[in-house]
């Protein structure tokens, strides 16, 4: 059940849970600039993220959030691959498969509860822009 800091991160990105500690994925070092590759010419983006603990139950949600954020922010010509960093999660293979399967992502986003969580996690990332 313990999902470590990722849980903290997701819970805290909801501004009404605790507005004082909105740890972002970057602050938790789940995603860093080095782990993102962008090839504008070939229209390809590859994001590798590192769950905080091996049994992190939030890994799929984090991946889904990254995907939705990119879907909304990138032109449709981009192909996006989202991967768990090798060796950082017990169910690495199945998470990678889930996150990069178009139909499973689409199905997940049709689940209103899941979509709600994703929206709430993403909302601060759109407000803090200047």
């Amino acid at each position, binding site marked *: 059940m313990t999902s470590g800091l990722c849980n903290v991160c997701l819970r805290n990105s909801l501004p009404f849970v605790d507005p004082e500690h909105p740890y972002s994925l970057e602050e938790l070092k789940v995603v860093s600039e080095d782990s993102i590759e962008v090839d504008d010419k070939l229209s390809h983006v590859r994001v590798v993220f590192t769950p905080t603990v091996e049994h992190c139950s939030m890994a799929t949600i984090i991946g889904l959030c990254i995907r939705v954020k990119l879907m*909304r922010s990138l032109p449709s010509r981009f192909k996006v691959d989202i991967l768990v960093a090798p060796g950082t999660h017990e169910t690495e293979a199945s998470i990678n498969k889930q996150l990069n399967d178009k139909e499973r992502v689409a199905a997940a986003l049709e689940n209103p509860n899941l979509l709600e969580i994703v929206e709430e996690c993403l909302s601060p990332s759109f407000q803090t*822009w200047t």
Partner: protein
Amino acid sequence: MAEPSTWVPHIESFVDASRTSSQHDASLEAIATLVKKDIVSLLEVVREMEMYLTTTDNVIRSRGTLLLGEILVRISHKTLDHTAIDSLSDFFISRLADWVALRGTLTGCHAILCRKKEVGSISKSDVQKFSKVFFEEVDVRSLAANDRKLCYELLICVCTVHKEVATIQGEDLVYDILRSIDDEMDPTCLMLAFQLLQSAMSLFPVLSDMAYQDAFDILSKYFPVYFTHGDASNDATREELSDILLNIFCSSPKFEPHIIPFLLEKLSTSFSLAKLDSLKYLRKCISCYGPDRMADHAEDLWRSLETVIFNKEEDRITKEALECFETAVSVLITPNRDTFFGLICQKIDSLLNRIAPEKQAELHALGSIFAIISRVSDSLCTRVFRKYFARLVNSLVESIKGSLNSEALYLVSEILSSCRGLIQRSPDSTEVISEKVSWLNILRNYSGDLSAALLKLVNAITSLKEESLVVKQENVLCAVKCLEVLATFPEGCSPITDETYDLILKSLALIISEMDRSTLLWKSTLEGLIQIGSVAENSIDRRRSLVYTALVVENLLSAFINSTLPLDLSLEALYGIGMVGKHRMEQVLQVVEEIIVVKILKVCLEGEFVHADTLISLLQFYSGRIISWLSDAGDVSEVAMQFALHIWNQMENKNILKNIHVMGILDALMMTMKHLVSVSTINHQSVILQKSHEIILKSVSCPTEWFATAFQNPELLMSSPSSSVEDLNLISLFASVITAVSAQTPLPASNPNSSSNFVSNLFLFFFLRGHMPAAQALASTINKNPTDNKAIESCLSILSEDKTENKQFFKKDIITGFAWIGKGLVMRGDDRSKEIIQFLLKLAISSQHGLDAALSAADGFHIIMGDSDGCLNKKFHAVIKPLYKQRLYSTLVPVLLKSMKEANSKEVVCRAFGHVISDAPLTAVIGEAHKILLAVAHSIITLSMDIQNKDVVYSLLLVLSGILMDSTGKESIIENLHIVIGVLTQLVSYPHLMLVRETAIQCITSMSTLPHSKIYPVKPQVLKAVTRALDDKRRAVRQEAVRCRQAWSRGKN
């Protein structure tokens, strides 16, 4: 008296729970009005209601009681006799036990308790009885929020209106109230509960310790006030609740043993709101409880504050902590109480011994502590000086020889600024000046060494010699600040000698002339010099002022004259120094004037065109900054007139006149002339006018007789030889004088006998030859001299007669000129403007004289509706009728809307429409949003085809976004949603202007907040259009697109 049959149905209707609430309200109001007007007596109503008030049916009984209660609320200003009041209060008090009908009972009790004496109020014994029964029978905590609110309001009424009765009950009342408000969570109710407790506690000067303990136990649960569900929908904000809670704690010092340890404990949590509120509460409590009560907490308080101040916290927490510290210092340190000061000294001692350069945060905290202790009072400042100042100065002086002790330098600068603040607040403090060991005298003893060291540091950075002392800029910055402080002590308490003062000025002036200008050091040195200057300026001792003039002002002026400094910086420095006082600015002004004339001669006579840019900057600086500063500071007319005359004198030289128009000099000169004339008085304006008029008469080469008849004979006008450059330049300059004169200044005539038409004829002649400044000047004359009908008639005669057949009149310049004249008339509210407006409309709509003429006519509306910096504005004394834009807007819009369908060239009409809409005040446009919205959309689409319309498209888009932001405008947008979205999605890929794309996406984003049911159908269209923008070549557009997509993909909100 009315028959019961006429009003009893109202009672029945109210009591009937199956009726709608509006019916209930209507019947309640009906009965209340009858009672108010004495058509039915209250007694009768009660008698008729007897059954409803006593029945065993809970619903009916509760409705009945509520009706009676509500009627009482509505007749609170109607006089009732004692018997009625007594029986009503008896009834309601007895009903407090009936929980089913409690709402009505509470309403009734409230109405009775709040009644004023003059209209019959409740007896004391009844109030007492009420209060007893209330606390026995009503369990406030178990009620619904609305009922609780009523209860609190009731009790507040008891505690404020019936104080004497409430006081009799003693401490029990407070306990009863505490019990009632325990665990209250609703913000609105909590606000009332706090108010209730506050008024209850204020009834008793002292309560038992136990009572404070219990009150604290209940209240402390609310600290820090914090809403878990956001505070948007609450009547009471977080701040209000927090403030009232603080006021309760501050109301009695007896809370001290409980609240202070509690707050100190909260200060150590990691929740920043708790920290922030603790500090705020502590600050207020310390000053309310006083030194005696706080003495015991001194140590704990210091430890807690120390932790916050010396650890890296959020800025607002550190700021609050320092404010709290300042209050603690001023309250806790008294002549006979030294613990707090001792503790601070301990910390300072431990830090001073081991502070390292890398611990900047610690150093800044220490600096703030020094600054605060030194600024609280003279005696504390003296203690700081005695204990630390000598030590810091010595170590600074010592370190100058080797490696600099920058920490000591920083701390000294903090202490110095604080003590200067002290002496500025009370410059006559004899204690400080006369007492031997006061801080000022200690400072005087050390100022010699200190300033020598600081000067050495500052000079090291400016000296060209390679010295052993390597200095960092931030240290010099600090040193400059110290020197500035030392030189800005008020007169009579200056700690430095006159020689040191001179040295300081020299060193700082050297930084200004020698150092790299882009640095912070240069800017802060300039600010320092300005400060020093303003102190010197205000002192009675002229010596320092003279020295300042010699060392700083003249230095800067000579640097300016010899151009050893870059122009913009030297102008900035001069302006800064000038702001010190009026005569300094006049000194600067004089030098700038001289240089301007020199540069004019250089450019125009010697042909050194490299100076043209400098000249233009100087002219802009002169008119835009110096003259406006001086005119704000007082009378500038004389100076302005002298310079205007000086410029005119130069114009007598033909060679200057010939070249003055090169590289934009004439434009700058004209603007300067306008400013000079506009700030002059009427008499001075006349002098300038006279002078310029003479020169015109003398120098214009074409015969003056032409002017009077020119407009009657277009053939002659066109066939006469074209004017010389000198003539045009002279006319432009004369035009700028005429443009800026005020309406009362008489215009010159060509000779004393003729009428004053010379000026208008002159400008009419040049206007018809396409000279724009002449047209503007003519428009100004027409605007300001309503009696000068001849000029207007001459202009209009050109339009009305068959002269309009003459092709020469449809040149761009002439059409634009007519637009200016139209503007002059419209602004004054003159009806004759109609003819010009019609002329322009005809040109634009029919396009019979070619597309160029039509476009010029369309742009004419921009001139007429828009604001101009160059002429016909308030600054240049134009006559402006209020709301002239609105009037013109409402006349033009229907015509343009109609002609949009029939016009030959739709683009031209749309362009004219665009100008009219975007230049009109937004409120006027929003008011008619429903009428014009479609036309706006249509115009945007039509205009977006051509790149030359991009500015109009942008202005129209801004109007559209203005409509979108307004609540009434939103309704029209919703009605035409598909069309608006169609336009906006098209603009998302507008190729000619990035701002249009960005604004269009912003508009779409804000439309996502419109009702979901309305916008749902257009969602796919929007998402598709915005997706294209994700690949836009400009970053700002891409970011807006992402935000927009996010807003629209979120679905309903």
